[in-house]
C-alpha cells in the first residue's frame, strides 16, 4: 500500500511537468502569434522600442524567442519550472504577488465547490436512493428527465437562465422590498456579495452542481436497483434481517462503491466547472483569476494557478483510488 502511494506520487512529477510545459507552450504560441502583451498596455499610443523593451522586461516577455513563431522557448520554460519548484510564484502584470491573488481567490472557490458538492451529495444521493427503491415512480421519472435536461443544457445557458429569472426577476422582489433581510437579497442576488460569502454563493452552487447532481442521482438509482436484485441481498433477507438493514447495510454499501468513486472525480469537475460559473456570476475566485490571466496573456498567473488545479485533480484522483480499495475489499494495490 505504501509502495503504491509512493509510486503514484512519483508519477505526479512527469504529469505536472508535462502540463506545465503544455501551458507554457500555449502561452508562448499566443504571444508569438498575437504579439507581445506589453504592447496592449500602451492602448492607442505607439510606444518607442525602448519603452516597449522596458515594459517587456518587467513582464518577463522580453526573451527574443517570443518573436520566433513555433519556438518552444525552453530556456523560459526551465526558468519557470525552477521558480515554481522553489516556491517563487512571482507577480502578475499589475505587480501583485500571485500568492496574494490565490490566497484571496481560493477560499471563495473552495466555498463555492463545497456548497455545490454538499448539494450534489445530499440531493443526488437521496433522490437516487428513493428512485432506486420505488422504481418507475414519480421520483424515478424526475431523476431521468432532469439528467437528460442537465446534460443537454450547457452550464453557461443554465447559469444565465438562473441569473435572469431567479436573480434579476425574482430577486428584484426582495431588493425592492423593505422587509426582506439582507441575506435573502444576497441569496437571490445577481452577483457575489462579499458581505454574505455563503448566501450569495448558493445560487451559483446550484448551477454548478446541477449536472453532477443529476448524474449522481442516476448512478445511485441504477446501482441500487442492480444490487437489490443481487444474490447476497436475497441471502440477507433469508437470514431474517429487517428490511431497513437489508437495504441500508447490505444493498447500499455495495451500491455506493461506484457512486463515491464518481463523487471523487466530480470534485475535480467542480473545480474546473467553477471557472465558467464564476465568470457568469462575477465571483472573484480561481476561475476569475484564470480567465483574467488568459485575457491578458499573463503567463505568470495562468501557469501557477492552472498547475495548482492540476495538482488538486491529481491528489483527488489518488484519494479516490485509495478510497475505492477501502470500500471494496476485493481491490488491493500490491
Amino acid at each position, binding site marked *: 500500500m505504501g509502495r503504491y502511494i509512493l509510486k503514484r506520487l512519483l508519477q505526479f512529477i512527469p504529469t505536472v511537468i508535462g502540463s506545465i510545459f503544455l501551458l507554457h507552450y500555449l502561452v508562448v504560441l499566443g504571444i508569438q502569434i498575437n504579439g507581445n502583451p506589453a504592447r496592449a498596455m500602451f492602448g492607442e499610443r505607439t510606444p518607442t522600442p525602448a519603452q516597449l523593451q522596458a515594459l517587456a522586461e518587467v513582464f518577463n516577455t522580453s526573451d527574443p524567442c517570443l518573436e520566433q513563431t513555433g519556438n518552444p522557448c525552453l530556456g523560459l520554460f526551465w526558468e519557470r519550472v525552477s521558480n515554481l519548484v522553489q516556491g517563487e510564484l512571482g507577480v502578475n502584470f499589475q505587480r501583485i504577488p500571485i500568492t496574494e491573488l490565490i490566497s484571496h481567490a481560493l477560499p471563495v472557490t473552495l466555498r463555492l465547490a463545497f456548497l455545490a458538492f454538499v448539494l450534489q451529495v445530499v440531493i443526488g444521493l437521496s433522490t437516487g436512493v428513493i428512485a432506486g427503491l420505488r422504481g418507475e415512480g414519480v421520483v424515478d421519472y424526475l431523476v431521468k428527465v432532469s439528467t437528460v435536461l442537465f446534460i443537454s443544457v450547457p452550464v453557461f445557458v443554465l447559469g444565465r437562465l438562473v441569473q435572469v429569472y431567479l436573480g434579476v426577476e425574482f430577486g428584484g422582489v426582495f431588493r425592492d422590498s423593505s422587509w426582506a433581510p439582507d441575506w435573502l437579497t444576497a441569496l437571490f442576488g445577481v452577483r457575489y456579495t462579499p458581505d454574505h460569502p455563503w448566501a450569495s454563493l448558493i445560487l451559483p452552487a446550484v448551477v454548478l452542481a446541477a449536472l453532477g447532481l443529476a448524474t449522481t442521482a442516476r448512478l445511485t438509482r441504477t446501482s441500487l436497483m442492480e444490487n437489490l436484485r443481487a444474490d447476497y441481498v*436475497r*441471502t*440477507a433477507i*433469508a*437470514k431474517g*434481517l429487517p428490511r431497513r438493514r437489508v437495504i441500508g447495510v447490505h444493498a447500499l454499501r*455495495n451500491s455506493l462503491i461506484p457512486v463515491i468513486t464518481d463523487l471523487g472525480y466530480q470534485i475535480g469537475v467542480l473545480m474546473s466547472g467553477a471557472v465558467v460559473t464564476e465568470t457568469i456570476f462575477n465571483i472573484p475566485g480561481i476561475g476569475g483569476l484564470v480567465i483574467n490571466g488568459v485575457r491578458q496573456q499573463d503567463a505568470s498567473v495562468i501557469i501557477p494557478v492552472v498547475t495548482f488545479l492540476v495538482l488538486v485533480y491529481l491528489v483527488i484522483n489518488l484519494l479516490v483510488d485509495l478510497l475505492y480499495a477501502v470500500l471494496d*475489499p476485493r481491490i488491493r494495490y500490491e
Partner: protein
Amino acid sequence: MTVETEAKKGAVAFDPNAPLLEVEDLQVEFRTRDGVAKAVNGVTFSLSEGETLAILGESGSGKSVTAQAIMGIIDSPPGFVTGGQVRYRGVDLLTLPEEQRRRIRGAKIAMIFQDALSALNPVFTVGFQLGEMYRIHRGTSRAEAKRRAIELLELVKIPAARQRVNEYPHQFSGGMRQRVMIAMALALDPDVLIADEPTTALDVTVQAQIMGLLAELQRERNMGLILITHDMGVVADVADRISVMYAGRVVERAPVHDIYASPAHPYTKALLESIPRVDHKGKRLNVIKGLPPALTNIPPGCPFAPRCAVVQQRCHEERPPLYEVNSERGSACHYWEEVIAR
C-alpha cells in the same frame, strides 16, 4: 434489542407436537409482461425431524420457487403466493405478518443457496456476516458475535477459523465458501434447513465433502432437511424420501429406495434412464426429448404428455391427480400401474 423483547414480539403460538413442516397445495405465480407464469401449482409435502426430503426436478420445475415460498423470500412483485398453506409446527406461515415471518427466517427455517460466492456479501468479512445472525436475532454484542462466528467456522471444519473470520468471501475457495453458507444457516440452530442445490457450483470431490458435512450436522441436530437438486446421484446417498417435480407439480413421491427400484411415473423413469452408466459405455445416452412446457401456457392435460414414452389420448385431455400407489408413495400418472410393472 434484547433477547426478551425479541421473544415477546415474536410470540407466535407454535405447537411443539404438531408436524415440523407441512406444505399443502402451494400455488405460486409470477406476473410478468409476457403473461402469468404458474411456477408452482399445488405442491404438497411434509417433513419431520431428522428427515431428509429431496425435491428433484430440472430447471424451471418450480423446486427453487417452492423453497423461496417456504422461506417467504419470493421477489414480489412479480412473484405471488396465490394459494395453499405452509405450516410450521401447526402455524400457517403464509398468514403471519411480515415482521413475525422475518423472525422465523434464519432462526427456525434457514436456507443455503447454490452459488456461495454471489450469495455472500463481497464487502463484509465472513465474521461480520455470520455474527449478524446473533446481533440481529439475539441482540448479542459485536465481540460476542465474533466469538460465536469463530465457533461456527470451527463447526463446519474451516481450518484457522480465528484468522479466517476476518477475511472476505473472495479469499475463500468454493468449498470453503459453501461451508460458510452452511455455518450461517446453522447459526441459530434452525429446525428446518433448505439446501437449494448446495453442491451444483462445486467440484465433484468437494461436493462429496459438503454433502457429508450437511448429513453429519443434520444427524447431530436432528434437523429436517429439504434438499433441492437435479442430481440423482446426490439424492441416492442422503435422502430418505423424494418428491419429483415437473412444471410446478409433484409428479411422484416415494421413499428413496422405491424410486430407484421401481419408478411409478414415466418422467422419473426417464430421468433414471438418462443417468450415464459405466455398463452402457459406447451406447447412445438416453435423453428426454423435447422441453418442459412454458409456465405461461401449461397444456390442459398431463404436462409431461408431449414428452412421454407411454402417452395415451387421455393424457392430453385429463390432468392426472397424484394417485396413491401405497401409503408412502404417489404418482401423477393415469397409467402408473403399467409404468411401475415394467
